[in-house]
């Protein structure tokens, strides 16, 4: 078989639908990953081990098991005793939960990077705990980890095709559907190129941002 551009044209409307779903999954997943990751990172610094240990065990387990199986778990097991979610929502929760365990490590590094003098100053000013975090530590910690968080958004983008396995019609899902219906093969190549076209400029942009923000 040879390459046929008319198949590409026919695929294009569905491709854009897929791009939209991919971006929705990415945006939702990133928000969950950023918020949950911060919660994990702060919980891991808790003075009580009854908070620290369960959170450490949970994040360690999520981080070292495949996202794909977690998606199946969320999609097939959770509805047995919890809410049943659409494929896209399941995917957003799965992506967000999985990568929150990575972003928590990023936040941890950022928090550890804040000089000890800042903590001491907050203590000396007898700032309450909440204000120490929100006004002193986090603004400094988060600023220097923004590029690293951005890198994980790119990783999430590249992992988002796994949502197709639970039936979310993001880029790969649309391409697979189109290929199976028309017995053509161009669609997957287009989607593959699309990922490179999105991910490469994004990573170049982040490198520029990193040089600006970190120093």
């Amino acid at each position, binding site marked *: *078989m040879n*390459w046929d551009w008319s198949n590409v044209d026919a695929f294009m409307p569905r491709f854009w639908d897929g791009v939209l779903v991919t971006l929705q999954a990415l945006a939702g997943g990133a928000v969950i990953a950023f918020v949950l990751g911060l919660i994990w990172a702060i919980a891991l610094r808790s003075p009580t081990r009854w908070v620290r240990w369960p959170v*450490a065990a949970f994040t*360690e*387990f999520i*981080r*070292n*098991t*495949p*996202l*794909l*199986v*977690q998606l*199946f*778990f969320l999609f*097939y*097991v959770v509805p*047995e005793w919890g809410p049943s979610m659409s494929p896209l929502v399941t995917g957003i929760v799965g992506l967000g939960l999985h990568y929150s365990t*990575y972003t928590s*490590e*990023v936040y941890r*590094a*950022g928090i*550890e*990077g804040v000089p000890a003098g800042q903590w001491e100053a907050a203590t000396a000013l007898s700032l309450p705990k909440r204000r120490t975090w929100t006004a002193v530590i986090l603004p400094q910690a988060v600023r*220097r*980890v*923004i*590029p*690293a968080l951005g*890198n*994980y958004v*790119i*990783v999430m*983008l*590249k*992992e*988002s*095709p*796994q949502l*197709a*396995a639970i039936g979310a019609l993001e*880029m*790969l899902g649309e*391409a*697979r559907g189109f*290929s199976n219906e028309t017995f053509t*093969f161009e669609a*997957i*190549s287009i*989607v*593959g190129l699309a*990922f*490179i076209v999105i*991910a*490469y400029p994004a*990573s170049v942009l*982040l490198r520029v941002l*990193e040089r600006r923000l*970190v120093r």
Partner: protein
Amino acid sequence: MMTGAFFENWFLPGIWITLQVTFFSAALAFVVSFVVGVLRAAPSRIVRILAGAYFEIFRSTSSLVFMFWIAFTVPMLFHIQFYGMAAGVLALGLTYGAYGSEIVRGALAAVPAAQREAGIALNFTRIQRLRRIEIPQAWPEMLPPFNNLLIELLKGTSLISLITVADMTFSGNLLRLVKGESAPIYTLLLVLYFVLAFLLTRGMRLLERRAKAKIGQAPEKTGLFGGLRSRSSIDAVTGTAGTGGAK
């Protein structure tokens, strides 16, 4: 919950396939990361650019889409047929090799320049310098990020179930369809992956201790439950060198 026959006929071979795919794709990724990693510091500019392009392209590729492309598009477009798990191994090896090349490049660049210069002064060829001086010193630095990458690769092998290779995840899905229950199956799957990751980490920590002892460094202290990931300045997942990481 699980019938014995099914377990023996599908689940155990599934675990075996997962192990095989992990092994073969790790071997391929290892070779690719060394070749590309070394070439990214090659004296010739064209070679450097080509190796850099390989890194950038495969780092920007979604491994699942690439796997689909190799498994379904390549056979139609180029009339090449892959057998069994070859397509999956190829896709995983090439993409994770790109991440690995950053580990190799970073570790080689961290070897003090005086070492390289000493090699030049002794009239070593480039290959000799790499083999005798630079790689032995960079090797202990590479092992922690390689450990993290290996766990990522193990997790990545679950993707081959989507191109219908009968690995652990595939047999889990099959079992769900046959038995109509899912909670015990997926829980077991997650635990199995975690146990495999744990065992791989133990093995890599052992290698790391040996490598460090060889060049006279004390091993990093980590307890049995000190977490599976190694602290490293190179992020194996994003393939970047220490962005805002532990400094």
